[in-house]
C-alpha cells in the first residue's frame, strides 16, 4: 500500500512537471509561428531569420555568451519569483539592482580584504542594499496599505534619479579630469574570477547556487511553506497564525536581496565598478518575463533565462545580415504573452483532469 502511494506520488509530481513543460514548449512554438507571420507580413523571410538565429546561436562562442547573458536574468527572475510565490508583484527589481550595483561598487573600493572575503563583502553589501530598497515598498504596504505594484514601479524612477545624484555628487571617480564616468575601480582582490577567460565569470555558478537555495527555501523549508501559504490563501494563512505583515516584509526583502545580485556579474566581473552606461538596465523587467516563462520553478527559470540569453546573443548577427535585431525582443515578448495564456488554459485542463482522476480513484477504492 505504501509503495502504491509512493509510486502514485511520483506519478503525480511527474505528471505535473510534464504538464508544465509541455505547455511552456508549446507556447514557445506558438510564439515562433506568430513571429514568423509578423516577419512575413513585414516582408522578411521567417525561415531565413530563424535559420540565422539557430546558425549563430549554436556555436560554442555563443553558448558561453548565452550563459553569460542568462546569469543576470536568473537572479532577476528568482527575485521576482520569490514575490510571486506570495502573490506579491515586485516590479521594482530594476531599481533595486541598480541601487545595489552602485552601493556595492562604491563600498567595494573602501575595504581591503583578501580575495574571497572581499568578493563576499561586495556581494553581501549588494544584497543588503537591494533588500533595503525593497523594504521601502514593504513598509509602505504594511503601514499604509499601498499596493506594491504601484510603489515598486514608482520607486524604480526614484531609484534612477537617486542613483544618478549619488553617483555624480559623491561616487564618481574624478581622478582623470572627468573623462571617466565610473566609480573607482575595485581592487583585484574584489574581482570575480572568470570561469572561461573573458567569456564567463563565477557569478554564473552563484546564480545556479541561488536557484538551488530558492528551491530549498521556498519549496522545502518552514518559512517557504508559510510564504506559499500566504500566497495561496492569505486569509487562511493569517487565520492559521502566519503573521501577514512579517511575511510581506521578509518576502520583499528577500526578493530585493536576490535582486541586488543582478548586476554583480558586470560590477565585479567586467566593469569592476559602477558607471551609468557601463551597467546594463532593463534586467528587472526581463526577469518578470523569465519568471513567468519559467513558472517560478528554479529549473524553469534557468531554462527560460537560457532561452532569453540565447535569443539575445544572436541579435547582433541578425542586425548584420539585414534582419532587424528587435525581432528578438518581439519573439521574447510574444513568448511571454502566449505562455501566460497557454498556462492558464493548461492549468484549467490539469485541474479538471486531476478532479476526474481523483473521482475515478475513489470509485475504484470503493470507500
Amino acid at each position, binding site marked *: 500500500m505504501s509503495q502504491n502511494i509512493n509510486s502514485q506520488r511520483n506519478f503525480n509530481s511527474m505528471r505535473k512537471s510534464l504538464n508544465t513543460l509541455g505547455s511552456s514548449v508549446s507556447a514557445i512554438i506558438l510564439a515562433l509561428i506568430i513571429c514568423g507571420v509578423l516577419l512575413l507580413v513585414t516582408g522578411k523571410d521567417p525561415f531565413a531569420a530563424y535559420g540565422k538565429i539557430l546558425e549563430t546561436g549554436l556555436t560554442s562562442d555563443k553558448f558561453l555568451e548565452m550563459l553569460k547573458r542568462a546569469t543576470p536574468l536568473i537572479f532577476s527572475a528568482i527575485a521576482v519569483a520569490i514575490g510571486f510565490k506570495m502573490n506579491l508583484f515586485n516590479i521594482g527589481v530594476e531599481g533595486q539592482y541598480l541601487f545595489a550595483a552602485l552601493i556595492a561598487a562604491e563600498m567595494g573600493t573602501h575595504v581591503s580584504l583578501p580575495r574571497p572575503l572581499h568578493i563576499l563583502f561586495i556581494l553581501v553589501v549588494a544584497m543588503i542594499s537591494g533588500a533595503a530598497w525593497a523594504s521601502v515598498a514593504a513598509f509602505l504596504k504594511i503601514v499604509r496599505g499601498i499596493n506594491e505594484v504601484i510603489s515598486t514601479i514608482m520607486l524604480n524612477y526614484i531609484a534612477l534619479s537617486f542613483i544618478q545624484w549619488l553617483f555624480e555628487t559623491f561616487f564618481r571617480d574624478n581622478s582623470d579630469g572627468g573623462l571617466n564616468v565610473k566609480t573607482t575601480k575595485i581592487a583585484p582582490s574584489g574581482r570575480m574570477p572568470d570561469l572561461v577567460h573573458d567569456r564567463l565569470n563565477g557569478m554564473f555558478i552563484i546564480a545556479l547556487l541561488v536557484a538551488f537555495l530558492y528551491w530549498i527555501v521556498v519549496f*522545502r523549508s518552514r518559512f517557504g511553506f508559510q510564504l506559499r501559504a500566504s500566497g495561496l*490563501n492569505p*486569509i487562511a*494563512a*493569517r487565520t*492559521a497564525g502566519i503573521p501577514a505583515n512579517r511575511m510581506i516584509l521578509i518576502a520583499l526583502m528577500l526578493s530585493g536581496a536576490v535582486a541586488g545580485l543582478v548586476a554583480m556579474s558586470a560590477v565585479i566581473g567586467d566593469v569592476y565598478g559602477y558607471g551609468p552606461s557601463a551597467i546594463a538596465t532593463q534586467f528587472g523587467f526581463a526577469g518578470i518575463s523569465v519568471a513567468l516563462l519559467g513558472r517560478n520553478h528554479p529549473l524553469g527559470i534557468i531554462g527560460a533565462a537560457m532561452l532569453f540569453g540565447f535569443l539575445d546573443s544572436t541579435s547582433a548577427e541578425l542586425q548584420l545580415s539585414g534582419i532587424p535585431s528587435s525581432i528578438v525582443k518581439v519573439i521574447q515578448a510574444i513568448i511571454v504573452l502566449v505562455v501566460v495564456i497557454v498556462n492558464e488554459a493548461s492549468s484549467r485542463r490539469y*485541474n479538471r483532469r*486531476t478532479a476526474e*482522476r481523483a473521482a475515478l*480513484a475513489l470509485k475504484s477504492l470503493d470507500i
Partner: protein
Amino acid sequence: MQAGSKKSSQTLSAGSANVVELANISKSFPGVIANRDISLQVARATIHAIVGENGAGKSTLMKILYGLHQPDSGTILVNGVLTQFKSPSEAMDAGIGMVHQHFMLADNLTVLENIILGSEPTKFGVLSLGDARKHVKDLATSIGVEIDLDLPISELGVGQRQRVEILKVLFRGAEILVLDEPTAVLVPQEVDELFANLRKLVANGTTILFISHKLDEVLAISDAITVIRQGSTVATVSPKSVDRLKLAELMVGSDLPSHGKRATKVGEKVQLAARNLTVIAKDRKNPIQDISFEVFESEIVGIAGVDGNGQFELCEALLGLVASQGTIEIGGSDVSDLSIRERLDQGLAYIPFDRHREGLMLAASLWENALLGHEASLSRGPMIDLISAKNSCREIIERFGVMTPNELVPAFVLSGGNQQKLVVGRNLATAPKVLIAAHPTRGIDVGAQAAVWEEIRRSRDAGMSVLLVSADLEEVLGLSDRILVMFDGEISAEIDPKSATPQILGKYMTGTQ
C-alpha cells in the same frame, strides 16, 4: 417591462396542467453524477418542494431548469412546450425566475432601483421611474409585502432583502419562481412572514419550486414534495401523507443520527473566558459590545444567533484577527496581548466560518492543508518534515473518514463535506484545550455532519472546551451544554438547551424579547 409581460401572457396561453415537466434528466460533471434520470411534474399554482441532503443534486437540477447548466440527456417541458435553455436569460424569457441563496443586490441603490436593475423601463431612452414604481407597488401589495421603495438596500434586514429579490424576479414577469434554500438565513418569525407572502403568490397563479432541507418548513408550506437522494428522485409525496420522520428517512435513506446525551460531566476549570470584550468600529455601531462569558473544561457553549449579529467579530477577536478591548483568557492566562500564533500555541484551535475563504488552500495538496497552522510541530529545524507531515495528514484522513484517494491530491478535488472534515480534523488532531467552532457543519451532508458532531463530542468528553457558533438551531440545541444567544453585538440571553425551543430561541435571536 412591457416586453416581459407580453412574454408571460404568451406562455400562459400555452397552459397545461403541469407548468414544469422534467423527464429523465441526467447530468454528470467530471467524475461526479449530479443528476441521474430525474423526473418531476410541477402543477400550476402550487408550491412544490424539492428536498434532499446537501450534495443530493437539488441545486444542479434547478440550475438546469434555469439554464445555468445544460442536461446531458432528458427533456424539459415548460407550459407544455419542449424547451432547451442555453442561458438564464432564455429561462427568464420563458417566465422562470430564481432567487438565489446568496442575495445579489447593490447595497447603495434603493429598493426600487434594485428591482428594476437590468430591465429598466425607459421612455425615449430616458429612465421612467414613475411607471415602474406603480408596477412594483402593485406587485408588492398583491403578495402582501410592505416595503419602502426608496430605502437603500444597506438599511434593510435579511428578510426584507429576500423580499426585494422576489419582487425583482416577479417584476421581470416570472410565473415560475425557484427559491433556493430561502429560509436558511431567516429566523422563525421571518419564515412565517415569507410563507404568508408565498401563499398569496400562489393564490395569484404563480408556481413555486421550493428547495430546502428543513423538513418542518417543507411540510408546512408545500403542496407536493419531491425527495432527491444521490442524484435521483426517490419519491414525490403529499405533505398530508408523510410526517417528518418518514420524510427524513426518504431523504437520508437511513435513520437520523441520534443526539446522544452526554455521559461525562462539565469540568470545574474555566478554559476560555472573555471579559467585557468590545470590538470598536469607527463608522458604525460596535460589532460586539461588552461581551463576557466563560467556557469550562469539557463543556460546549453554543452561540446561537442570526448571522451578522457579531458572531464573526467575536471569533475574530478571540483569535486575535481583530483588535479588541477587554480581556481574553485561555487556560487561565491572559492572552489579550498575544499574537494569533501565540494564542494557538496556548491550546486554541479554530474551525473558521468559511472553509474556502479562511480554512483551505484549494490549489495545494491535502497534506499541505493539514500542515497549515502546525508547521512548527511538523518541522525538523528550519525544514518541513515531509514524512511526518504526510503521515499526520494520513492519520487525519483515516480518523475523520475523509474520502480521498490519497493525501497528495489538491484540496479542490474533495467534496465540501470532505473538505470540512479535513479542516475539523486538522484542528482536533492536536488535541487543543479550547476549540472555537464556527458553523462546523455548514453546507455538508448529513453523514459528514454526524461524523463532525461525533468528533466534537468525543473531544469534549476528553476535556476540550468548545465555543460553538452556529445559525443551525438543531446543531446548537443538539450539541451545547449551555446556549448564549447573540443579538446586535451583545449576548441577549443564556438558555438551557433542555428547556429551549426554536420559538424561544427565535425570540431572543430577533431581539423581540
